């Protein structure tokens, strides 16, 4: 049940579209609307304001704006991917464990890389040096490189 006074307040606040009325009062208000000519006049007045408000145009989202916003996601996305990758290496363990293992591997690789030129120079052969270096960093294991490594040792 709803009073005409409450109906008046309702349309004065929410306008003439029942979809905007409070859910728990909607059915009662629609019932009153069917029964009351005064309620219908109040609806007409509210509709006039709704029509004015609806003249305000809706602006569209430009592709440029979308791109600008999505571009801001990238740093998080890449850090999230790295975290996800690390977590996947040792499921159920903290992400720092595989991260620490990777860091240790990297440190070992750097140390080996630092000493490698001196070792190669001691060996003396130019072609052999290149092949050895390639093999040490694990970048290219084609047959030629293996052959030259074999020749040089």
């Amino acid at each position, binding site marked *: 049940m709803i009073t005409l006074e409450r109906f008046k307040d309702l349309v*004065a606040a929410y*306008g003439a579209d029942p979809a905007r009325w409070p859910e*728990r009062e909607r059915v009662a208000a629609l019932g009153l609307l069917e029964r009351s000519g005064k309620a219908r006049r109040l609806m007409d007045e509210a509709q*006039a304001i709704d029509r004015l*408000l609806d003249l*305000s*145009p809706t602006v569209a989202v430009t592709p440029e704006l979308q791109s600008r*916003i999505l571009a801001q996601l990238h740093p998080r996305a890449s850090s999230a*991917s790295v975290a996800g990758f690390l977590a996947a290496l040792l499921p159920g363990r903290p992400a720092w464990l595989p991260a620490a293992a990777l860091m240790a591997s990297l440190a070992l690789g750097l140390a080996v890389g630092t000493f490698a030129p001196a070792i190669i120079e001691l060996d003396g052969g130019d072609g052999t040096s290149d092949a050895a270096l390639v093999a040490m960093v694990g970048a290219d294991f084609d047959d030629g490189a293996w052959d030259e490594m074999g020749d040089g040792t």
Partner: protein
Amino acid sequence: MDMAIIIRPGHYPPGLCVEARLRRLIEDPDGELVARVARGDQAAARAIMARHLPKILNLGRRMLGDQTEAEDVAQDVFVRVWTHAARWQPGQAKFETWLHRVALNLCYDRLRRKPTTDIDRVPEPADHTPGPAAKLFEAQLAGAVNEALRRLPDRQREALVLCHYQGLTNIDAAQIMGVSVEAMESLLSRGRRTLKAALKPLSEDAFGRNEDDGA
């Protein structure tokens, strides 16, 4: 008792707390997307933008009356989403409600830096010529309505934007505004009355002429 009336973040009634939070969790269609955004999922980010960016952009446009500023606000809002997604707590509040609150805060930051204007000085459209000029007149009317909206007191405009344009429920709108439903209704009524008075000459021209056209 209507549970939806009494649910407020941080003020869950004893005994209803778990139920209310579960209900929010179930009702929030964005929870899963936000969790995926926290993991850097581009598809989820696109989906959440498709769902909310148009509304947030238009909220900014109507609150600030300026397209460029509205776009800047929309961008800031979504950057906050990307930044805070990992800390999002499903069930605490609806994501859409939070999004609107952030957008409005950013709008108010900008409005505080703008000079205030007077609702009584809404400019009238220059051209009232019917016929071929009708479209132009309609565009001018739309401009006048936007201007009248912009000149409303901030809280009245906020209530109107949330309920009329954003389509939020009275409960969500009141929650976003941090007031009771009754106080929000009062702001809505005053806003509509003020707009009606400011635009009365225009509405009589426009709708009077439309009715004549239709006859």
